[in-house]
């Protein structure tokens, strides 16, 4: 009954492995990026833009010209902050996709301090960062609490909180915080001078936020590598069962990580309002989907804190290139979204490639196959190459 349906055995067999050599991860990731670049090239052709010229323009205006490079780095700042946070959350298998809302919450916190407190000048900016971080952390702690205490699916709640934050900002700039001068477009009053972040020369690179982001990445890298907390995160990420036996309070660690992650995203929101817009603006202009792109940053970094830096710079480049495509090449503004989605898909799809390899089948195993195909043999025995089961078990629902 089974035999006619079964495919002929291939000469090679996929052998999953839990650990992948670093060069293979890098190679596969670069391959995914290259495929995305090919697709973009095809889009250029489809829109009647000469691909060589288009790429030259993009590289010149995002990487070679000082102003363009500053834009690339500037757009990498929120991605660094939100990305390093998500990396932490994902390590503990807390699927926070609410960074976008946490960025907005941070922006709300910073705006509240900038517009409605009477602090002495030098204290304003630190207070804004603190308020933004706390607001972001609070925004992220609610879904984390619901997950830890009641098992509520965090993917959906964090996402719902994105929409709630979005409409909250819209309500604030249309209602209680609306600027007196605002007609047509809505926004809050302009921040006073002491609540605005300094930028590098004539660029929009608000370096204090960048410094905070880089320090945070370094701290997280140290924390993960050297501290007891890092060890707990590691164990929890690899096996919640083992964590339980080791006496690790999974709820507490998850909550702490989620709050840290959301706090980092909150800092990103502070940078955007205090460094770029200098007032609370329409939420879709305040964060251009940085919170969603940060998911890709965290996944590209594959659990390595320091790898967040190149990953964030790469996505900063994608966002900056999107601006160039829209302004200089008159291509649709939605292209970066497509690229982000595509790279994410390719990275996920190629993930299994980093976790195993094709090995030539043992001839004795091939010889044994006809016997295994006898109807009485359990089908599982046919493919049960000894190492496959155990090694693959670590892979299915985590890692990503």
């Amino acid at each position, binding site marked *: 009954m089974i035999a006619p349906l079964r495919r002929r055995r291939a000469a090679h067999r996929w052998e999953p492995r839990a650990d992948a050599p670093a060069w293979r991860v890098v190679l596969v990731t670069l391959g995914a990026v290259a495929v995305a670049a090919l697709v973009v090239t095809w889009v250029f052709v489809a829109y009647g833009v000469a691909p060589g010229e288009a790429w030259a323009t993009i590289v010149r205006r995002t990487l070679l010209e000082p102003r363009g490079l500053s834009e690339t780095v500037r757009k990498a700042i929120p991605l660094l902050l939100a990305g390093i946070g998500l990396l932490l959350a994902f390590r503990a298998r807390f699927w926070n996709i609410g960074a976008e809302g946490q960025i907005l919450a941070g922006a709300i916190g910073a705006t509240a301090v900038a517009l409605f407190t009477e602090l002495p000048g030098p204290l304003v900016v630190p207070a804004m960062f603190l308020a933004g971080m706390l607001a972001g952390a609070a925004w992220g702690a609610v879904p984390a609490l619901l997950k830890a205490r009641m098992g*509520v699916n965090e993917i959906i709640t964090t996402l719902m909180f994105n929409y709630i934050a979005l409409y909250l900002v819209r309500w604030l700039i249309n209602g209680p915080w609306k600027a007196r001068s605002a007609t047509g477009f809505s926004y809050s009053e302009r921040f006073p001078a002491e609540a605005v972040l300094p930028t590098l020369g004539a660029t929009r690179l608000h370096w204090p936020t960048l410094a905070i982001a880089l320090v945070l990445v370094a701290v997280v890298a140290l924390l993960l590598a050297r501290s007891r907390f890092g060890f707990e995160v590691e164990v929890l990420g690899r096996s919640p069962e083992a964590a339980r036996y080791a006496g690790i309070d999974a709820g507490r660690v998850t909550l702490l990580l989620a709050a840290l992650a959301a706090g980092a995203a909150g800092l990103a929101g502070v940078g955007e309002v205090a460094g770029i817009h200098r007032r609370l603006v329409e939420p879709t202009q305040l964060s251009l989907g940085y919170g969603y792109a940060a998911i890709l940053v965290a996944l590209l970094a594959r659990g390595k804190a320091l790898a967040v830096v190149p990953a964030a710079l790469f996505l900063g480049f994608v966002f900056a290139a999107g601006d160039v495509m829209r302004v200089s090449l008159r291509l649709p503004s939605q292209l970066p979204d497509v690229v982000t989605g595509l790279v994410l898909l390719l990275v996920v799809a190629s993930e299994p490639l980093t976790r195993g390899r094709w090995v030539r089948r043992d001839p004795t195993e091939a010889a044994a196959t006809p016997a295994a195909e006898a109807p009485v043999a359990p089908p599982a025995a046919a493919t049960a190459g000894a190492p496959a089961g155990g090694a693959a078990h670590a892979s299915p629902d985590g890692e990503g």
Partner: protein
Amino acid sequence: MDVDVLVVATIARALAFATPLLWAALGEVIAERSGVVNLGVEGMMALGAVTGFAVAFTTGDVWWGLAAAGLAGMLGSLLHAFVAITLRADAYVSGLSLTMLGLGLSALIGRAWVGRPLPDPMRTIDVPWLRELPLLGPMLFQGQYVLTYAALLAAVVAWVLLFHTRGGLVLRSVGENPTAVDAAGLHVRPVRYAAVLIGGLLAGIGGGYLSLAYRPSWGEGMVNGLGWIALALAIFAMWHPLRVVLAGLLFGACFTLAFRLQTVFPPELLTMLPYVFTVLALVFTAWRRGRHAFGAPEALGRPYLRGER
């Protein structure tokens, strides 16, 4: 206004509002019952909405549009099926990337159609015979779009297929214990593929309802989280097609009632309500069933690899 008239009108509006949610949530129930979670619902709905609109606009026929919408959703889900089932990559991230890709692609495709109304949109009709029913008639069977009635029918069909046919039994078994299904000599992956593709088809139709009937136009914010709400609805209904209808009606009624408060509350806060309701519904579900995911398919979100247990 009489109270019963108000109730009838509210439920009728709720049903119209809930129709896209019903389609998408039914699709997700079928996919998740086979053990494959698909977070790409939002993206598939957007793809369905834009493709349906483009085809209906070009051909002048909403039914071709609807077919295209379903097909677009299905194509999106095929991508997810390949990555999550064949490549055995992480289903959560794969679905998420489908949502991002679907939203980006739909915005890209739909640029030419933004702000153009559909000249010949879907019309509302009454259901013969059933419209005469007291109370139920005006609530459910009058002045709705065909797709709304079809959603109710689809829920019943899904229930019969899932719980009263051999195929449905196989599908649910694949979601509960794929190893046992495999050991019984049946194939796990084709079943999962079929379930995910049906899920994509229904999500695409849900998107088509938005752009062809409910608001016959296209704009980037059209789906606006409905796909995610549909995912929550599938959980809230504990993966049961008939409970999806009840849950959808409850959701719809909450939103409809909330919008009657427009004179009291600013519009931005009212727009926020569906998302708040969704969180509350999930909290309620979790509270009711305790810490254990009662009703969730056992193998949900786990790729199947032979020889692994």
